[in-house]
């Protein structure tokens, strides 16, 4: 170094910049560090479309058809975005390790030339802090969303005790090998093998099974709960989109598990009421 041209990265003397800061700055100037950062950003942007592609796959048959499903999709979206930076960083290291750092092939044991790095306090601390913060974020997000969804699906409180419970439609869902039966106790015990639901009205499901464990999955509504023999499980939803959706069994229940599916018809209020009348359901609520 000549005296006339001080190197650009030389610390001015005297300096009170902390040495660790100095080392970080020095580190960022290294070519491989820059390359890994560039790769991280590039891979991150390449992965970014996944946020929407995942939702596009979920929405193929008309989801989201309820606020619950909307919450689920928001969660998927947020989790994807949150995991992209860390995934991109790990992939960037893999890629740079394959392409950037030195290679040796052949059967001869290569000479010991790698730097003997046994640890890095700054790096490890950063990783721990970031990964813990991410995990905390996921937990908090999950707890809040779970509380939200539990509220939207009316938890396990019986229908009468729910706020507005008197207005809600109650459907008793019974799984048996290999059909679903939907009973409407408020409508003279009207039963149906297609799930008819009114739009924009709370629905409570009392789910049980006659034989083995089934799983009542109203796909586009984001409702899923086991149908257990000898127990009644409760959930609920407010469909907010009219249309034809799917019920599938999501728990292996024997030979014809694959065929244990049926339709959901979410109807406007008037259509639902006329369906009830035409099916002999007596009074409408």
């Amino acid at each position, binding site marked *: 170094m000549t005296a006339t041209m001080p190197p650009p990265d030389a610390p001015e003397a005297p300096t009170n910049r902390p040495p660790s800061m100095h080392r970080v700055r020095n580190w960022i100037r290294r070519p491989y560090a820059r390359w890994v950062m560039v790769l991280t950003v590039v891979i991150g942007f390449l992965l970014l479309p996944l946020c929407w592609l995942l939702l596009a796959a979920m929405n193929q048959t008309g989801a989201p058809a309820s606020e*619950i499903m909307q919450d689920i999709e928001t969660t998927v979206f947020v989790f994807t975005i949150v995991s992209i930076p860390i995934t991109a960083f790990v992939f960037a290291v893999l890629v740079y390790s394959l392409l950037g750092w030195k290679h040796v*092939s052949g059967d001869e044991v290569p000479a*010991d030339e790698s730097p003997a790095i046994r640890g890095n306090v700054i790096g*490890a601390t950063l990783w721990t802090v970031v990964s813990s913060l991410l995990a905390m974020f*996921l937990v908090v997000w999950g707890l809040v969303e779970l509380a939200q969804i539990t509220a939207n699906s009316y938890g396990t409180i019986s229908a009468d005790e729910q706020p507005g419970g008197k207005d809600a439609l109650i459907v008793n869902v019974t799984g048996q090998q290999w059909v679903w039966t939907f009973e409407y106790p408020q409508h003279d015990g009207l039963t149906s093998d297609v799930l008819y639901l009114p739009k924009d009205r709370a629905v409570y499901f009392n789910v049980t099974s006659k034989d*083995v464990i089934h*799983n009542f999955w109203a796909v586009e509504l984001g409702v899923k709960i086991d149908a257990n023999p*000898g127990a009644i499980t409760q959930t609920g939803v407010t469909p907010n989109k009219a249309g034809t959706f799917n019920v599938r069994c999501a728990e292996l229940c024997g030979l014809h*598990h694959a065929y244990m599916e049926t339709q959901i018809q979410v109807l406007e209020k008037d259509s639902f009421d006329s369906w009830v009348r035409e099916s002999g359901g007596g009074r409408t609520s």
Partner: protein
Amino acid sequence: MSTATTTVRGVEQVTQPPQHGKPGGIMRHLNLGTGLLTGIVFAVGAGWIVAALTPSSATTPTFAPAGPEYVYLAGLIGWVIGFMLGMGAFIGPLRWMMGRDLTHDDAEYMAGKDLGVKRYIKFTTDHKVVGVQYLVVTLVIFGFGGTLAMLIRTELGVTWSEVFSPEFYNSLIGTHGIAMIIAMIIAVSGPLGNFIVPMMIGARDMAYPRLNALSLWLLVAAAVCLISSMFVGGMQDGWSAYQPLGSQAPPGMLGYQLTIIVFAISTAIASVNLMTTILTMRAKGMTWSRTPIFVYGIFASSLMGLYAFPFYQYSQILALTDRVWGTVFFNPLYGGSVWLYENLFWLLGHPEVYVIIIPTAAVTLELMPVFLRKPLFSYNFAIAGIVGVVALSGLVWAHHMYMTGWAPAVNYPFMLSTEMISIPVGFLVLVAIGTFWRGTVWTRLPLMAVYALVFNKMIGGVTGIYLSDVPADQYFHGSMFVVAHFHYMLMGAGLFGAMGGIAFYFPKMTGRILDERIGSIGLWTAFVGFQLTFGSMFVAGLQGMPRRVLQFDEQFNISNWISTIGAYIIGLGMLIFLAAIIFSWTSGVRASGNPWGSKSLEWQTAQPVPLENFEVLPVVTERPYNYGVPDPYDEELAAEDGDRVEKVGAS
């Protein structure tokens, strides 16, 4: 030799029991052949007696004809006892009871001294023989489970008709599941845990050599039970065999239940053995901070297996008594609880995932320093990661039960504990990428498997956080998304890591190098097929396709076609890899004792490894993974600002 004392390595030993006849006694006549023969004789005999005792009108508690059930059960029990008897598994205790305890010469005979190839088909106690036997058994079970996987994908790829009956298809998915779970549990801990760990810690054998052989042959007996179940209707309920569905299954269910009962014993024995060996037999100077990370991994895996498998065993014993004797543990008609079964099952089910993942992760971390020629990055973080996973592994099981309605309130804490486990797993990822960092890459097959593993593990890990989250799981539970996720973890990370580990230790185990070219072609073919298969399976899950179905709506066709094509590519890749193993084993390039230039103890042994591994027991004087040179950047930095830079690494 019938003297009362012997001399071992010039040291007069305490009194030996008198030697009767040739060393080994009756063990000289027992091998796999007599085991099979006795097993079949006992099975047929027990079955015949029970058939004679069972009236033809008898029914089981579920009103199935009792005859086939009882005969099959008796046959299975007869098989296990007869096989173990014929192998000579009980000779030690029997001779001890008769006052003719095993002598030193007997023990040496049982360790396979001077037996040549014959020792591989006998009840041999040498840990190296047991390791090789485990490798073969693992490959056989993988072949079995893999074949079933191909059949499953064939059924799902043929979207226009049913290839198999629902009965057969359901038994395929269940048996594939449990076969692969068993294979993955033993894939690393069996071959490498037995063969490598004693050498790695500088011991002459395992702590309990006879228990070591016992665990292996119990596994063989269990595997035969499982395969036999395919011929009596199979177990048609998925590997989880939820009750009360399990009680509807044909007699094949008994095969599954007995497999689990016997396998749990085998696992418990192997776990205790490995843990005792690691705790008590490490070489002088191998303190905990000098113990290789693979040893930690095996210890952690054994520890988790030890507390987790009893739950599984209980669940299957209770289900078995429900089925055969009409107890009602899981029968809701009489006050039993289906949720009790689910809890017992998943108390195994989740630790079991880490029983599989931790050894593969550990063997990966073990081989990375060798091929990158630098120390493990943050050895302490690797240990912290393993300890963290073990600590949390027992507290997360109910995340499999979010949607059961069992206790909605506990979903909150289980979501918390499940998402916390991403932190210690993240430590392991940090250690891996930190070790990659600036390493000179020696492009050998074992290291290539590590790239595959880390890639798959990231995808499996990230998709795991969706499933750990109750709201998202409300959509994904029971869908193909779950199937894709756990295949990314167990196969993508577990199996590819195990392939790397086996390629790494292949020269030590067989004396020959695993063919680099064929092995790599197999590995990468399987990797590409894997991404196709399970990548598109994620899509099917997102679209809303439930798992364990035989037929499905048309909207899932495309992803399933891609998935099936991918599966055949995996199959091809695995066959190529298997061919590499077989050809290299029989006629590969002979390896020196330490072909990778590793510095750890197991590679310092002679090739082939002598019976007692080390002529003189080694003494460990330095930390593991002393590779590499002082970081030139650090020296530059030190020179630049005159700071005292902490000297790290080789000294």
